[in-house]
């Protein structure tokens, strides 16, 4: 009995080591050969950043259920798929892209296919006005790497997150936005990242850097979508630095192909009196994990970190957020809502950390999940870590099914049951979607939610 247990333990250790090696080899073989050719490789600090990240990946391997941050999200399927670097994929048909991409009205569109910047599909963005610089990441890192010296890797820490380490280790293309002091960019910028594997599973690691100097304002939307085919891994990272009084509205939507994997991370630093508003929408993809870390670094910095997810089929969605109150009088607000149907799993992990000096902090967090049928599982871990005494922090979490009394009420008004259910689900999600302050982004997200709802059999009604 004992011997067999011991054997099991030994075996477990062995497979773990084996997995570590596999990951390392996979990365080394397919990527490292190309490392020398990656943009910015000649800059020793860029190269160093990549090397360190890859060393961290090699040392830690793919995180398993014993790693607290990945307790509820298994990467087995990712580990077992032999991905190749996406730029080797050349058989992609892009003609259908305009049909599938959610288009933001009046936006400056910047399109990536498998992580590769596509000027032919993007809008012109050479001349956006004085103080506005929007450029492909590879251009900036090759021609003026110094401009990114204090930006790249400043808050996207590879040692804190597998997602960040993988992206930093292999980042190649992406975009850099820089707004000079007090510049307001009126048109929103929309990044559209399209995954399309063709005949071989591929992985890509787009990197976006956003720097808003003091008093600057902008709206950025990231739309992650995909085309059917072999599974792909979209491993994006967005690093954001907001100077004093800067305001950024940042909305991320993930509606990946149903076989695709998405591991994305946003890391934000918010200086004094600056404001960061974000929304994460996760609707499709076999596995979608969005990580967000917001550091409220200056007095009076504020952040809104909202989100919604809708799951059906066999999806797995994970929103993991971390809000760090590092200065006095900082404010954070978070509402995440999820609707789950089918054989799905929804995960929300939210940590609010209040540092010793961050007195008079206000932190609010709410997670609500609505389970539509018997299949889904929802796992929620709202966490408070507080070291300052003069604070107001609260979090709440609920899970449950639709209130039958609500359905009854609508039915008593002559609405049939299906429509009533659909209305209630829509209302449940709209509640948080309406908190998006940018109008065109709100319309875009509302449309996406509606389209998703219309596809759900359990709610299927003619007109929605």
């Amino acid at each position, binding site marked *: 009995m004992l011997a067999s247990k011991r054997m099991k333990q030994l075996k477990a250790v062995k497979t773990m080591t084996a997995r570590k090696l596999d990951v390392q080899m996979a990365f080394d073989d397919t990527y490292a050969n190309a490392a020398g050719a990656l943009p910015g490789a000649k800059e020793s600090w860029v190269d160093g950043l990549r090397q360190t990240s890859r060393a961290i990946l090699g040392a830690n391997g793919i995180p398993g259920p014993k790693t607290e941050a990945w307790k509820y999200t298994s990467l087995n399927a990712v580990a077992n798929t032999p991905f190749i670097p996406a730029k080797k994929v050349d058989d992609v048909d892009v003609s259908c892209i305009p049909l599938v991409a959610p288009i933001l009205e009046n936006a400056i569109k910047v399109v990536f296919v498998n992580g590769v910047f596509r000027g032919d599909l993007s809008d012109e963005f050479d001349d956006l006005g004085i103080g506005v610089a929007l450029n492909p990441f590879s251009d900036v890192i090759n021609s003026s790497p110094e401009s990114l010296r204090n930006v790249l890797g400043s808050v996207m820490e590879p040692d804190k997150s597998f997602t960040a380490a993988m992206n930093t280790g292999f980042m190649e293309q992406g975009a850099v936005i820089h707004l000079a002091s007090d510049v307001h960019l009126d048109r929103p910028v929309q990044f559209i990242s399209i995954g399309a594997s063709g005949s071989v599973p591929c992985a890509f690691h787009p990197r976006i850097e956003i720097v808003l100097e003091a008093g600057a304002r902008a709206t950025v939307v990231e739309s992650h979508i995909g085309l059917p085919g072999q599974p792909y891994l979209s491993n994006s990272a967005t690093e954001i630095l907001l100077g004093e009084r800067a305001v950024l509205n940042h909305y991320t939507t993930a509606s990946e192909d149903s076989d695709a994997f998405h591991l994305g991370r946003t890391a934000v630093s918010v200086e004094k009196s600056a404001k960061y508003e974000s929304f994460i929408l996760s609707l499709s993809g076999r596995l979608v994990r969005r990580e967000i870390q917001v550091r409220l670094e200056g007095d009076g910095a504020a952040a809104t970190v909202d989100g919604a997810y809708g799951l059906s089929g066999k999806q797995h969605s994970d929103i993991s957020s971390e809000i760090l109150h590092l200065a006095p009088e900082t404010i954070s607000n978070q509402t995440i809502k999820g609707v789950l149907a089918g054989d799905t799993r929804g995960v929300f992990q939210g940590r609010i950390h209040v540092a010793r000096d961050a007195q008079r902090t206000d932190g609010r967090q709410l997670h609500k999940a609505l389970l539509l049928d018997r299949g889904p599982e929802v796992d*929620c871990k709202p966490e408070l870590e507080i070291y300052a005494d003069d604070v107001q922090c609260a979090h709440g979490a609920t899970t449950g099914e639709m209130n039958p009394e609500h359905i009854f009420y609508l039915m008593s008004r002559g609405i049939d049951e299906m429509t009533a259910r659909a209305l209630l689900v829509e209302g449940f999600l709209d509640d948080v979607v309406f908190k998006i302050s940018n109008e065109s982004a709100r319309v875009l997200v509302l449309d996406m939610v509606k389209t998703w709802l219309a596809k759900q059999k359990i709610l299927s009604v003619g007109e929605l």
Partner: protein
Amino acid sequence: MAATQQTVDAVRDVEKYKYGWETNIESDMAPKGLNEDIVRFISAKKEEPEWMLEWRLKAFRLWLTQEDQEPDWAKLDYPKIDYQDSYYYAAPNIGEGPKSLDEVDPKLLETYDKLGIPLREQEMLAGVAVDAVFDSVSVATTYKKKLNELGVIFCSMSEAIKEHPDLVKKYLGSVVPYSDNYFATLNCAVFTDGSFVYVPKGLRCPMELSTYFRINEKNTGQFERTLIIADEGSYVSYLEGCTAPQRDENQLHAAVVELVALDDSEIKYSTVQNWYPGDGDGKGGIYNFVTKRAACRGKNSKVMWTQVETGSAITWKYPSCILQGDNSSGEFYSVAITNNRQQADTGTKMIHLGKNTKSKIIAKGISAGRSNSTYRGLVRIQPKAEGARNFTQCDSLLIGNQCGAHTVPYIESRNPTAQTEHEATTSKISDEQLFYCQQRGLNSEEAISLIVNGFCKEVLQTLPMEFAVEAQKLVGISLEGSVG
């Protein structure tokens, strides 16, 4: 100047741990260290049957393989424990087990007098039946006769192993198996005593049962094991209190408590934990690593945990309920107070398996000084738990800006008809509240004690009356010196 000094002295006086004395009693001790011989020694000392020794050895051998598996996920910071630097068996030297209280060493009785549980008086007054555990051995059980007449078995674990082996065999380790976790496994190997309670079918136990634990010897660990079985339709309320002398070194306390509630039964388990918390600089104190779990096996069964945690340098404790029976319910009420350099990581687990199972969690954490307290809890709804219901409320109160209060709840729901609700808040005592109390003539410490007692009221009122009074006082004492 003199007046200031007087105040300082006065504060120092009250800050002192009231239960910090030791009793000089000759003890029968096992050699220091931990190995298979010690396990055999303990088993032999207790005159245990072979199957018990086998069970202990099985646990011990497993524990040896787990060397690197000491749980490290809790938000606790302490130096690595040297398990060889401790005595695993210390019994007050009283020869044969006492037949009645008259045979118990008068010094021991004096000890309990100081603790505020005069056994004799207790015997006179109607109410509480006490089993007192001194270091490793149960020294006296009061009210035995009367309980026996009713069919309630309330005795020390060693006695139960000898006299009720069938019950022990059937239930021991059935809620917390020997392989459960590092500390529980260690407990299985070296546990020395504890209480055993069996309440027969349909009986509402007419008095509160109570155990008092005390660690007396230097360098000893205390490993007690408690097993309570409530048979169909019965009810029992059980109280547990603990203290230890003041010592510079850390002492380990790794207990296991198992509760089994069968159909329609109810168990109420209350703890006032006041182990020595260490001094102001965090020197000494008890490491309290405890596994407590209840199985609500029968339909309509109910378990209620109440804990007031004011002592221990480190608390690692998660009284849990496995809600197996349909309509069973589990409740957890907790107050955890930390001051100076104390650390507490405590909470509960509610595992819903049966239909219409209910759980309620009220946890209040109060941190002062340089202490850290964490609520860590799990609510899991399994797919078959139709109509399960959970409500969780965690409130933290911070006193001073050098302490920390953390909340780490895990909520896992796999049934759509289940409803879970969780809410948590963190705040401090507002200046307005303090001012209001002070202008009514209370000094700041009285004011804080009053406000904190109000903050904890929901939990304290679930305690049996005698304990509630003690707990209220403890709340005040624990926070003394926390405001300047």
